[in-house]
């Protein structure tokens, strides 16, 4: 029997709010995070997609000026979420043994703004003007490194990079560190800040993005028959995960248990999901086994559900093959309908949602579901939040990414 792991702190900065409380309140109310972009570069480059879900609170409003200069935007957002989670866990004035503290943070793309701004500087002003901090700012492990430094974590600062599965994979890496007995506490999460014209143009050319330029608020519509692609989002989520023993010894408040998790890979196609959802099915089964949970224990799934025509169906197929008739008793939230798709941060923010759902016994809403796709007969939480009942239960958070990555985390109520 592996040791129990518990979640004692949460942090987030998202298109719905600058912290967990404002984000969660908005997620229960049903709030579209996508808006028309008001940057000169949208017009300048004649981008085919003119909207996205930017963070509600600019990091410069929260961080000091040197911090904003020395950290890429993605690290800035990760640091804001990490600080909130740390304080929320009541660790601000606690002397922790740094050698028993780890970091596991995720990103899909890393410091893309720094990389491309520096390239512009080199071309326009020459190599001398390229800032010396460029590489440590653009590297994908920039956030985990900076966070380990900020909190004195000396037991390893790992980085999950598996595209849109990264956020959940970072939690699973944290779980592995804790189960191996190498650490007592891990500050885990994911961050992304890639609303830049290059990724926007590239994702648009893949036909991956919604083109609903005239109505951004209605663009992210998972499971709806009129869904036409995902909406780019940015933000970060963070969770403090510790052994139950450690949490109890310091009298910490526990939101939920990180019961288990698993990653698999499709080995089917670099970008298209396996049409049968076989990789997702295996990840779900293995996550439940890892959590020592039965299918019937699951009451709620925060689905990957990006709102692409191709992606939403195989995820349903996977859930159907794992849960069978019990799927009728599982309520599903597709929160990307509100936040947009936070890429490498998606799984982290959605894990925060799943944990909050179990703690508050309320599943957040899916917006823009007007005509549910008959191929996806799920019990989708729409209109108003769903009461989850008071009994013990398991909530699932699934994330899938380009590269054929599947990552599923299982949380248990306390």
């Amino acid at each position, binding site marked *: 029997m592996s040791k129990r792991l518990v979640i004692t702190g949460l942090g987030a900065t998202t298109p719905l709010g600058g912290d967990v409380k404002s984000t969660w309140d908005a997620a229960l109310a049903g709030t579209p995070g996508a808006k028309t972009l008001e940057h000169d570069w949208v017009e300048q480059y004649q981008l085919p997609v003119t909207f996205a879900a930017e963070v509600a609170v600019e990091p410069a409003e929260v961080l000091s000026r040197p911090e904003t200069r020395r950290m890429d935007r993605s690290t800035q957002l990760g640091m804001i979420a990490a600080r909130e989670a740390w304080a929320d866990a009541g660790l601000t004035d606690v002397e922790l043994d740094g050698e028993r503290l780890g970091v596991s943070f995720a990103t899909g793309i890393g410091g893309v703004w720094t990389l491309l701004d520096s390239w512009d500087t080199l071309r326009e002003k020459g190599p001398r003007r390229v800032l*010396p901090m460029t590489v440590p700012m653009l590297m994908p492990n920039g956030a985990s490194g900076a966070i380990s430094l900020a909190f004195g974590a000396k037991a390893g600062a790992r980085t999950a990079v598996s595209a849109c599965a990264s956020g959940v994979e970072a939690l699973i890496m944290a779980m592995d560190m804790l189960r191996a007995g190498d650490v007592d506490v891990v500050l885990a999460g994911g961050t992304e800040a890639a609303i830049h014209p290059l990724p926007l143009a590239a994702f648009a050319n893949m036909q991956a993005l919604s083109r609903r330029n005239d109505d951004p608020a209605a663009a992210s519509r998972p499971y709806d028959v009129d869904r036409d692609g995902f909406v780019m989002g940015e933000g970060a989520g963070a969770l403090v995960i510790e052994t139950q023993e450690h949490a109890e010894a310091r009298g910490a408040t526990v939101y939920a248990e990180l019961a288990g998790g698993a990653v698999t890979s499709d080995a089917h196609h670099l970008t298209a999901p396996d049409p049968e959802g076989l990789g997702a099915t295996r990840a779900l089964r293995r996550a439940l086994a890892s959590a020592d949970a039965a299918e019937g224990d699951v009451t709620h799934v925060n689905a990957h559900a990006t709102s692409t025509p191709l992606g939403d169906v195989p995820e349903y197929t996977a859930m159907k093959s794992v849960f069978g008739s019990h799927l009728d008793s599982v309520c599903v939230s597709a929160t990307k309908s509100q936040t947009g798709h936070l890429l490498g941060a998606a799984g982290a923010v959605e894990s925060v949602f799943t944990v909050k759902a179990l703690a508050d016994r309320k599943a957040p809403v899916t917006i823009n579901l007007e005509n549910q796709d008959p191929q996806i007969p799920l019990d989708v939480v729409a209109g108003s939040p769903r009461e989850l009942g008071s009994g013990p239960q398991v909530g699932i958070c699934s994330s899938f990414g380009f590269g054929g990555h599947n990552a599923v985390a299982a949380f248990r109520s306390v």
Partner: protein
Amino acid sequence: MADKNAILAGLAEIVEEETGVETEEVQLDKSFTEDLDIDSISMMTIVVNAEEKFDVKIPDEEVKNLATVGDAVDYIANAAG
């Protein structure tokens, strides 16, 4: 000869921007490493920004000779002619 007070003020702004050290702290007798706690990467960033701001060249091999804020102000003043 460029106005050294203006150079000091401009340099102090660059230092504050990069490190958060308040402009009043950036005085001629202050050592970049000992007093202002500026590491080598920050120092290079300050140098690159100073080159742009004052339209001068500060070769890499000169940077190690700029121990104090006063050294840097003198160097920039001379280089700017």
